[in-house]
């Protein structure tokens, strides 16, 4: 039986339209040549697909927030993979591909996301945006310039930035600089299971409104991985 109040009573309030506070969650995803090796890009696509229900559950705990997802892919160029802020309930993942010849122009990706960290387009009532960088290598362009530009934007500086390195070639110094917060550690994924676990950890921590812990979660030990990056 439906709730009779759903259709029976017109409860009006002073003021205009009410809304929960937007929480922008943006993936910055490495699609450089090295990501085409050892199934890394496939593992990344799989991980994001598996994440969606976890993210939805975490967001449900954050009663004052409306989570909006976007994604940037960067290789020789940086571009929006999901340009429109998308509600979690409507979020569908289209697989990324990696060009074997492509470079790692992370600086361009930071400049691209920095444009969205201005006010407007972001509103002063937004919650701090979450930027999650996933990369397996070293930037090949002006990373520091992009970083400075990002931090010079009001919401860029105020954003929560997290990073996950894939494999032993991931450049820790870059990933740490991206976070720019000594309390938060870089997560290092050396196999597909760890990647899934870390991506789940960072996304659910941010979306549920909890403080992001520096304690690194242990990857699930369900089955020994056949792939080591």
């Amino acid at each position, binding site marked *: 039986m439906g709730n009779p109040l759903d259709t029976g009573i017109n409860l009006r309030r002073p003021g205009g*339209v009410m809304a929960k506070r937007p929480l922008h969650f943006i993936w910055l995803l490495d699609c450089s040549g090295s990501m085409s090796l050892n199934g890394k890009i496939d593992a990344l696509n799989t991980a994001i697909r598996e994440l969606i229900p976890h993210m939805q559950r975490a967001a449900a705990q954050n009663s*004052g927030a409306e989570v909006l997802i976007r994604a940037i892919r960067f290789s020789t160029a940086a571009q929006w993979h999901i340009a429109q802020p998308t509600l979690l309930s409507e979020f569908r993942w289209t697989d990324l591909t990696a060009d074997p010849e492509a470079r790692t122009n992370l600086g361009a990706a930071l400049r691209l996301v920095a444009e969205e960290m201005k006010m407007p387009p972001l509103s002063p009532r937004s919650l701090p945006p979450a930027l999650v960088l996933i990369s397996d290598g070293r930037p090949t362009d002006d990373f520091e310039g992009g970083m400075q530009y990002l931090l010079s934007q009001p*919401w860029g500086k105020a954003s929560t930035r997290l990073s996950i390195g894939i494999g032993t070639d991931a450049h820790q110094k870059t990933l740490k600089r991206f976070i720019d917060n000594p309390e938060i550690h870089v997560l290092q994924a050396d196999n597909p299971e760890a990647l899934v676990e870390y991506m789940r950890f960072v996304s659910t921590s941010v979306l549920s409104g909890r403080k992001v812990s520096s304690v690194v979660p242990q990857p699930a030990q369900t089955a020994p991985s056949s792939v080591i990056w």
Partner: protein
Amino acid sequence: METAARKIQWQVIGESCRGASHIKGNLPNQDALSFWLPESGFGPPAILAIADGHGSPQHFRSASGAKLAVQAATSLLLAFAKMHGTQSDANSLRTEVAELPQRVVENWTASVSAHLAANPFREEEFSRLQDPQDADARAEVTNNPLVAYGATLLIVLVTGYYAVFLQIGDGDILWVDDTGKTVRPVPADARLIANQTTSLCQSEAWKDFRWHVEAPLHHPPALILVSTDGYANSFRSDDDFLLIGRDFLNIARTGGLQKVSAQLPGILHDASEKGSGDDVTFGIMCRQDAIAAGAEGVAAGSEEEAMAGYVSKAEYESLRAKLDEHLRAAEHRLSLLQWLLALALILSVISLAFGIGARYYPARPAAPAIISPNTGAENPSQAGSPANTPPQRRDPPQPAQPGASPKSGPGH
């Protein structure tokens, strides 16, 4: 110089609502509200103070900090009004008001120190600061105990001659004129984004106060609205939020301030639930003649929207309880009717099996079809249909009437 403002009267109402996310997270309401009026219940002077205790774990006594802040502010502003109540020279007033932030901070600091001396920190209060990454926050409290009490503060004083507005941190003070036009008298602070705010607990906090003096008060506002940031953050945009000025003025004009006061808990609870999830505290300082009968109307078209659709939380819950009661009664009646219908069907089948129906109603053309073994076996439900029963003598159970259905139950 005596102004027209001196003759008018002010009333103050307010309400504080524990946030939806605070309820979920088992956190207290960390906001506080205080106001002062003369014994007559009407200002001037009228004083309203609202504070928002910070939510981060290191501010574990922020609810107390907020209470102490509004108490300190109210008593200080009352003393200020007594000393400078008839002052209307803007320059002189600004000189005096410029001193207020430091005195507010000093009074709050003294109150907090006294509270801490009487209630030293207990180890369990640090329970939310146990993780390794909380070491800095824990050290921050140890080095500066005021941090545990951190809060914002918004203060309004209206006398017969002037109005003073002071604010540290986020939250909103709105000036609503007689047409419903709503503006902020206090300058904005661009640093207040991403849940970051200036605070009473910071070093030299008085430097972060923003303030405004309106003197002389030739054109006093109809309403002055003061709220913690949980209210503005519940709206899609700032323009949507500012519409509350027009709307509260409408409600006050059509239903009086008491009606507004009765509705406030429901309105604020609803805002937190549908919006920010944060504590919402809201005060209204109201110019009596601006809402009296015959007061000038607000923006065209908006008056007709006022009142009729508003219900308070208490009214809402009472109505909901009544509707649920109606539904339960309707369900009970429906269940009874279903049993009667089933009983009638069984009796009809038994009657048909013994050929009683054919003997009693030989002239009816439909009867032979009903007693036909094939028809009866294949479609037994027809046996009890109204067409086969004299309505005058044996009314079969009727289908549930519209008034008894769950769907239309609430209408009764």
